[in-house]
């Protein structure tokens, strides 16, 4: 049949000659290659001590942001939880009391905010859904752990450090 693209190549498989059928030269060639690799620069990055550079749009551990005055930006609207395809986010909202204006920016805030890191797929949809620019996936790699309950990160792990004045 005529080839339509005219890019058809006929591969002719020649029968192997004597040296090729011995296999030994090929084996020695391969062994020379592997031996050369012993002296090449090692690609290993010693992770906990050294961290590799992440790209600009790397999505890691979530952090709940504070504004310029050190108040939590989150208003517990629930849009992040709604947008989350893995349903990893849960929260309980609470009303801001008098005297807490320096803690929370909006009149409503998240009393409990939990992300299950075993469910999270780090898609970044919560980041996009947030109207208050309160959640960003700009942290490091999520640490490994032994128990499932330790993977449910609460506000203690998620909220940014308060501003230092």
């Amino acid at each position: 049949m005529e080839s339509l693209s005219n890019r058809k190549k006929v591969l002719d498989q020649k029968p192997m000659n004597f040296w090729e059928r011995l296999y030994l030269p090929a084996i020695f060639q391969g062994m020379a290659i592997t031996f050369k690799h012993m002296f090449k620069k090692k690609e290993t990055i010693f992770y906990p001590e050294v961290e590799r550079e992440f790209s600009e749009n790397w999505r890691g551990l979530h952090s709940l942001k504070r504004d310029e005055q050190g108040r939590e930006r989150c208003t517990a609207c629930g849009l992040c939880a709604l947008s989350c395809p893995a349903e990893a986010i849960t929260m309980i909202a609470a009303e801001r009391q008098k005297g807490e204006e320096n803690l929370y920016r909006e009149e409503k805030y998240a009393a409990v905010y939990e992300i299950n890191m075993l469910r999270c797929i780090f898609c970044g949809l919560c980041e996009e859904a947030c109207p208050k620019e309160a959640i960003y996936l700009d942290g490091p790699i999520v640490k490994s752990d032994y128990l499932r309950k330790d993977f449910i990160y609460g506000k203690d792990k998620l909220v940014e450090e308060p501003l230092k004045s």
Partner: protein
Amino acid sequence: MELSFIIEKFILITVIFLVSLGIAAYSTLAERKIAGYLQDRVGPNRAGPGGMFQPLADGLKMFMKEEIIPADANRFLFIAGPSLALLTACIGSAVIPWGQDMVIGDRIIPLQVTDINVGILYIFGVVSLGVYGLMIGGWASNNKFSLMGAIRAASQNISYEIPMGLSIIALLLVTNTLSLKEISEMQHGGNWNILYQPLGFLIFMVCSFAETNRTPFDLPECETELVGGYHTEYSGFKMGAFMFAEYLNMFVASAVMSTLYFGGYNYPGMDYVNGLVGPIIGPLIGMAVLFAKVFAFIFFFMWVRWTVPRFRYDQLMNLGWKVLIPLAIANIVITGIWITIYDKL
């Protein structure tokens, strides 16, 4: 039998046993390190400085793991399999001469556990016995993959024993003795057997790769087809025993190859060095040289493992029966003719 003889042998056996166990343990680390280096990685380096205590950590892990015996397995044979594999791997080193006779005062201490006059055949027999551990273990697991692995191990070992034996026969034509001690002494002064038997060495080496179930001939345990082969059902310490037996076999095979073909404890300039350091340190240097050769062979085993892919089963059988056996027979004939002509001249 005097008491000092028994003490002497007891010490020698203990030392050799412990050293071979230590080498087998550290071979596991070396394997992973070499694999790492050949693949531009660094290998395990967390346990101790540079990963020095990794074998201890691995051993501890093996001990702590749950020992599972399958419900339908034959309990006695299931335990006997790895024990037998470990036993046959250990007793192979009994006839290897580790060095020249040591002279302390007027006592002559041979650095060899026993010099039986059929030393090579003894090693050959021990190697052929090694397959029982694998077969019994694989059969007793009552698992199809294990059984397939056991059957593969059996047929592979039987097939490759024949060219191995034939290559040894060609070597015996050259050396005229079966005793490993005499073979070692004969290679004194750079007179190594590899010079007379290059083809025989090649065949012997390929067969020893097959007999120790190392890649490219590790079909009895090939993961991609048989899950784990004969040790699919094994866990914990029994699994460790199988692994340990493999590394011990590798050590013994390396020692045998160095002794048979690469001069054993001999090295160039041996007489001069012996004259300098005396009859106690001299044999120890020879022993160190032998160990250096053994380590080189172990490195070679690992280097091949991380380079050459596994054979297909029919390729394995073709290589054994249609290539190695005719080659080995041809080697015997050529050696015989050569010796006859050499004697006439």
